[in-house]
């Protein structure tokens, strides 16, 4: 199956090359060495270099997907300072550092016990980005019916991000293929394992759209910054506050988020005493949520003493990363590189300290406070006996009101025209409470609240909100880590997932939301193991239905379904109840898709994984199909590798342990065995079996003829037959 590889991961070595030799070095070498080197450096800093600790931990991907969003709203003079440093703007400067807040962050859960997080993260977004993602309300949005709901669906919830994610992954994979082709062959394991699936998942989960049915992308806080250069600092801050509040954000976004004021002090040009005085003044005006950050405005070059590489964001949305990659490619040709890749170490630690302080001392306490108060005021009232009577009577009266008067607004807070709730309504606040509890990883509270609001939304027929609540109910339930009994599986997970997918896909055509919901659930179920893993595979198959075209995403998901089945191990010596055959089937299907996409290394990996199950199969067509697949993908069997290495004498890999899996078939296939390097050219995309299969032959006839025409081995029953 897996080659016993001890090669260093490609990403790490790529990283080190890029560190040692900055861009201009590589640029000069393009002409001589072709595009591979330049691509190496290009990918080194971005996605291909997956940190090892994250690769192993799917949960951390999911934790880091649902994090508080902090809007960044800065004065122009701040961006000026950052630009003098050679970086695009302040937002770009601090964004990577939000992905890993330095040190340990402690949050208090609903029980009052504090929980430490080692890897807390926040996501910075531009204030303008929050504002521009307005739902395009077509004028004909009517109340009630689905057409109206459809029209008010934000563009971003539709699948426009998905092709981009596919495209990006395609690029990454092509890059990997190229590396493998250029004789870095033994690194397949790193490149073809789950690393790319995780990358896919991460890209899918980065860049949540701002929508009405969930508040993850709504800002929790807003960072407002000015610099020491500003002539009228306090006024500018007030203006920023105002312009931020007046910005055209969608109505359903609660504008009562935390404001955090930052004074950027220019260490190289301005006087620290003056800045300190100004900072004191700021504190007097705006309270305690202030921070003074000291940045140097001079450009940093590699040779500077404390230079550090500018961190790369791991959570760039696919569209941005694509744009960046394209712009890099353009940059290589024209020689105008203005963006610096290095910054002063002091700056980096200053930014880290600022973010840590902001998160630990302002954002988290702010969230805790709000969670506690919403919990008190709304949830307990809703859950208490009074709330039940109230909501019941309201519903009762509301129902009669709808019958008499056409205005259904009296019955519920749901605004069907915009498909949203006003931010101050109890429903919206409860959803926010649940989301915030989720962000602070208080899964139990989140689960309770999602469970409660689901029925509320259901009564209001707010289908998108119902679907969102159903999705999060399952996810938070799975994250609580309570054992998944068959009853929970049948009554909760299956039912809600099915309903949520139906709502997303059929009612709203929100493929992105559906895919996200399914894939996150699949991962969590897979982690649960056992029969849950089979359920994961089942829902993974459902996710495949969302996407008919053979894209990278489809291939990755197919492969993942195979992995899910593989997780389920059988019991006893026979492996009863395992799903090895299913796993093998899905790996083969993935391999087929990979070949269609031209990603042969991936295909070879899948074939390697699946092959042991089929190596001695006596199914004619399966054999034929697999031989074709091997031929197309340039698969070289491990036995071949062994021979190869014996001859060339450099074979320390391809250990003897793997020898047994392929050997039975190898002896009859010596003739048509492809050579490793030659077969990249014999790409044979059409899926028909090779020429010797007569199209009209029926199965049984073929079987009868088999001993004479097909290369099938008949070791066991052959002698007894004739």
């Amino acid at each position: 199956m897996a080659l016993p590889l001890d090669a260093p991961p490609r990403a790490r070595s790529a990283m080190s090359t890029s560190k040692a030799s900055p861009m201009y070095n590589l640029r000069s070498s393009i002409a001589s060495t072709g595009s591979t080197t330049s691509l190496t450096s290009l990918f080194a800093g971005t996605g291909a270099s997956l940190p090892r600790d994250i690769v192993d931990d799917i949960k951390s991907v999911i934790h880091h997907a649902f994090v508080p969003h902090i809007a960044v709203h800065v004065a122009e003079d701040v961006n000026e300072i950052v630009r003098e440093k050679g970086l695009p703007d302040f937002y770009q400067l601090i964004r990577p550092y939000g992905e890993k807040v330095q040190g340990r962050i402690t949050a208090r859960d609903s029980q009052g016990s504090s929980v430490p997080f080692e890897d807390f993260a926040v996501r910075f977004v531009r204030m303008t980005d929050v504002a521009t993602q307005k739902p395009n309300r077509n004028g004909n949005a009517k109340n009630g019916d689905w057409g109206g709901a459809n029209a008010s669906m934000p563009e971003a919830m539709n699948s426009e991000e998905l092709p981009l994610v596919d495209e990006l992954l395609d690029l990454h994979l092509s890059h990997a293929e190229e590396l493998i082709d250029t004789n870095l062959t033994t690194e397949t394991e790193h490149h073809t394992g789950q690393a790319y699936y995780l990358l896919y998942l991460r890209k899918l989960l980065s860049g949540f759209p701002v929508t009405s049915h969930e508040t993850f992308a709504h800002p929790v806080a807003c960072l407002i910054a000015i610099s020491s250069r500003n002539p009228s600092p306090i006024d500018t801050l007030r203006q920023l506050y105002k312009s931020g509040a007046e910005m055209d954000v969608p109505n359903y976004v609660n504008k009562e988020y935390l404001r955090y004021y930052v004074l950027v002090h220019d260490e190289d040009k301005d006087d620290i005493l003056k800045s300190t005085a100004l900072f004191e003044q700021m504190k007097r005006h705006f309270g305690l949520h202030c921070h003074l950050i000291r940045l140097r405005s001079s450009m940093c070059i590699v040779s500077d003493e404390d230079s550090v590489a500018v961190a790369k964001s791991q959570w760039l949305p696919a569209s941005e990363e694509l744009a960046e990659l394209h712009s890099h490619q353009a940059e290589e040709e024209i020689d105008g590189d203005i963006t610096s890749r290095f910054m002063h170490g002091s700056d980096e630690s200053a930014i880290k300290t600022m973010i840590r302080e902001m998160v630990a001392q302002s954002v988290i306490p702010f969230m805790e406070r709000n969670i506690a108060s919403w919990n008190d005021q709304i949830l307990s009232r809703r859950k208490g006996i009074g709330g039940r009577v109230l909501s019941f009577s309201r519903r009762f009266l509301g129902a009669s009101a709808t019958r008499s008067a056409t205005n259904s607004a009296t019955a519920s807070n749901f605004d069907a025209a915009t498909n949203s709730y006003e931010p101050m309504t109890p429903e919206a606040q409860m959803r926010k409470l649940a989301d915030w509890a989720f962000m602070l990883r208080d899964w139990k509270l989140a689960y309770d609240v999602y469970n409660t609001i689901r029925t509320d939304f259901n009564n209001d027929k707010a289908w998108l909100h119902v679907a969102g609540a159903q999705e999060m109910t399952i996810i938070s339930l799975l994250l609580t880590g309570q054992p998944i009994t068959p009853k929970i599986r049948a009554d909760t997970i299956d039912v809600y997932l099915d309903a949520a997918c139906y709502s997303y896909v059929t009612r709203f055509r929100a493929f992105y939301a559906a895919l996200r919901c399914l894939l996150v659930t699949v991962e969590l179920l897979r982690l649960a193991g056992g029969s849950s893993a089979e359920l994961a595979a089942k829902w993974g198959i459902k996710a495949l239905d969302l996407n008919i075209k053979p894209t990278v995403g489809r291939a990755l998901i197919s492969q993942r379904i195979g992995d899910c089945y593989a997780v389920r191990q059988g019991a006893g010596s026979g492996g009863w109840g395992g799903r090895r055959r299913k796993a093998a089937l899905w790996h083969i299907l993935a391999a087929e898709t990979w070949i269609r996409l031209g990603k042969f290394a991936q295909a070879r990996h899948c074939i390697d994984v699946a092959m042991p199950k089929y190596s001695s199969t006596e199914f004619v067509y399966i054999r034929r199909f697999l031989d074709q697949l091997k031929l197309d993908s340039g698969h070289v069997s491990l036995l071949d590798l062994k021979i190869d290495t014996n001859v060339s004498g450099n074979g320390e890999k391809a250990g003897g342990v793997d020898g047994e899996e392929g050997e039975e078939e190898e002896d009859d296939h010596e003739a048509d065995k492809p050579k490793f390097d030659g077969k990249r050219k014999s790409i044979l995309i059409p899926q028909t079996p090779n020429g010797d299969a007569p199209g009209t032959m029926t199965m049984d006839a073929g079987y009868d003829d088999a001993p004479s025409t097909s290369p099938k081995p008949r070791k066991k029953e052959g002698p007894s037959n004739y």
Partner: protein
Amino acid sequence: MASSTSYYFVIIGTKDNPLYEAEFGTFKQGGDGIPKFREEQRHMNQFIAHSSLDCIEDLQWASKEMYLKTVDKFNNTWVSCFLTGGNIKFLLVHDTRSDEPIRQFFADVYDLYCKTLMNPFYEVNMAIRSQSFDQKIKAAAKKYL
């Protein structure tokens, strides 16, 4: 998948080895009994049958019957299974659900298989090549499917 119903029938031995395979179309609703599988469905049928063995290994302990009904589903195809006492599986890959005719078909096949087993020259897990067995299976398919 074919436009009209087609069936893929396979008898699988104890070592996941096929003993006998056949394809046939439906005779119901004026069908001509000719399988309408496209070329790429051929290997998929085998893959599907093979992978459904996983589910059978699960289900065989839970049911007293030899006929396990529909055991697996892959996209639009179902797999029905009949498990003999000797752990030989009769699998039928089909694209319409109809439990009762399949049960009757399997009962006939079981008869035929038992008769084959009584042949002193036949051993368990040996491929079945008898022409008459083939014809009788086809006849049973014509009768029920």
